[in-house]
């Protein structure tokens, strides 16, 4: 029983990180039909920005982390939108898919060549203490990761639903033509979406890297899981991606323990195929006219 509880708790903790990446993923899809195959690398990179600022340039951590988030917003948000997505969007979705695959390779190779091919330790923001609940040992970082990730997603929901800019962004995502007629600056709203994705990726990166260690190849698994979480939860809903992320986190843990460790990666994939076959809009997604 304590083992089961332990698995649920750590599943929620890592699942909340997957959710951050998956939410960003769906935001980009909604705003610009971008299927970002580099999303995993987007989560890998900010940790190296922190390391570059703190280890190489000597900034203190409390300064390096916010700076890295700002840099991530600029590089993964603004630059990505301006240099890669914008000039390509007129060609349709496929060239953009290919370009993001290439971008993922580019980011990986740059980190490997200019920082290090080896894994790097990464400082944790939180004390390593533990609390024991129902026989499960829960570490402070686990709790903090979950709280911060959920906090970020709730804040995002409040922003999208409760502010004028947020509602304009939603209108842009739902129907750009109507939004434009209503006087919304579509380009700006799409740009905001990209910046938010950059910030979410940076937060995920800083939270998860103390456990995963900073390594150029970390994005490979993360990107795939974000992708699965987004589709399973519902490609066009933030809460879908949230549920998808948490669900994959838990399922991964449970299947590794109770089904088969050798086939642990298989269960989320089988879930993905089943969802596509019986409920292609995802668990919480709503059917939309647009096909993915």
């Amino acid at each position: 029983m304590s083992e089961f509880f332990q698995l649920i708790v750590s599943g929620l903790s890592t699942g909340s990180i997957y959710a951050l990446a998956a939410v960003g993923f769906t935001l980009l899809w909604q705003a610009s039909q971008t299927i970002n195959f580099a999303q995993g690398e987007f989560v890998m990179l900010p940790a190296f920005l922190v390391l570059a600022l703190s280890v190489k340039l000597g900034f203190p951590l409390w300064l390096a982390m916010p700076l890295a988030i700002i840099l991530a917003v600029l590089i993964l948000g603004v630059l990505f939108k301006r240099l890669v997505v914008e000039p390509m969007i007129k060609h349709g979705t496929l060239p953009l898919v290919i370009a993001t695959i290439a971008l993922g390779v580019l980011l990986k190779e740059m980190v490997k060549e200019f920082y290090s091919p080896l894994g790097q330790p990464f400082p944790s923001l939180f004390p390593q203490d533990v609390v024991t609940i129902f026989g499960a040992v829960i570490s402070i970082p686990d709790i903090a990761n979950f709280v911060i990730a959920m906090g970020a997603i709730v804040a995002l929901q409040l922003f999208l639903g409760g502010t004028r800019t947020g509602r304009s962004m939603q209108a842009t995502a739902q129907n750009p033509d109507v939004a434009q007629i209503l006087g919304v600056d579509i380009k700006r709203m799409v740009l905001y979406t990209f910046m938010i994705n950059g910030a979410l990726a940076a937060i995920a990166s800083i939270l998860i890297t103390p456990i995963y260690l900073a390594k150029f190849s970390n994005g490979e698994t993360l990107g795939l899981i974000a992708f699965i979480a987004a589709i399973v939860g519902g490609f066009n809903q933030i809460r879908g991606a949230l549920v998808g992320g948490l669900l994959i986190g838990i399922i991964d843990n449970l299947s590794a323990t109770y089904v088969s460790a050798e086939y642990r990666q298989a269960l989320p994939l089988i879930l993905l195929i089943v969802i596509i076959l019986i409920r292609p809009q995802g668990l919480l997604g709503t059917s939309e006219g647009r096909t993915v």
Partner: protein
Amino acid sequence: MTRKSILFTLVALIALILVPLGQGNYIIYVLTSWLVFSIAAMGLNLTLGYAGQISLAQAAFMGIGAYIAALITLAGYHWVLGWLAAMGGTFVIGLLLGYPALRVQHHFLAFVTLAFNTLVFLVLRNEDWLTGGSHGLVGMPRPNFFGLSTGTNLEFYYFTLVLFVISGAIFYWIVNSPWGRAFKALRENPVRAESLGVDTRRITLLAFAIGSAFGGGAGAIMSPLVQFIEPGSFAFIHSLKILLMVVVGGAGFFFGPILGAAVVILLPEFLRFTEGYYLMIYASLVIVLMIYSPSGLIGAGQKLYARLRPGRETRKDMEKGAQL
């Protein structure tokens, strides 16, 4: 075929026959794997360039083909049997996989194949009793044909070249057959094609299955070429590599994937001076290419040619690139 393209094909063939002469084993090996990947990329081109579907499992199909051929040849049967079984097996799996995916919503094939590739990897790695697990399979013999051996690297290159030409001919025949033309109709205007009585779903499914069989065939050649196969060689990342070959060369063009495979496999040899930067340069070039010419290098070449010789139209359908 116009006279010009027949001439071009002949020249290319003679070049392919002459190019490995006097080269070291390594260069011949690289050339051979280029031909093998060209066959796999050709298959994906059918799926992507002609039927407009993204398949992210071409490496998995190569893997299935490679293991089928390896198991059959290791059991003492002739390689040709393994090759046919590999193509047949991957064709059937393609049908089984594509049918439900294409039934739901036609763009979901990309996601289903993505999951399928990792599942195949896991099965190859975990089912030791059949596949040797992470140790892989070793020592597949190179076949003999009526007393002709394919044992040395040069002999094996020519053997692969023959299969490459056969595959190319099949591909050419498919694309120019009545249902190849149905593909073209489908790509150029799906709505009209449907109204003219083209069963888009069946055509697309067949294209995917045949494309997968090309992957299986390429895998069957890989077995005796490398004489060692293990699950890691057919992981998801290699499917992305083959996808990039097709797109960079030019999806929807006959020579596109062959050129794309050359860029991925042969070019690094000539760009050794770039050392660790090769992948970075390559990735940046892909991004730039997608911005300026989504129809790949051949598309870019045609554009340039059209600009130099005004009055000629580029293909309208390819200007936009294949749509996801």
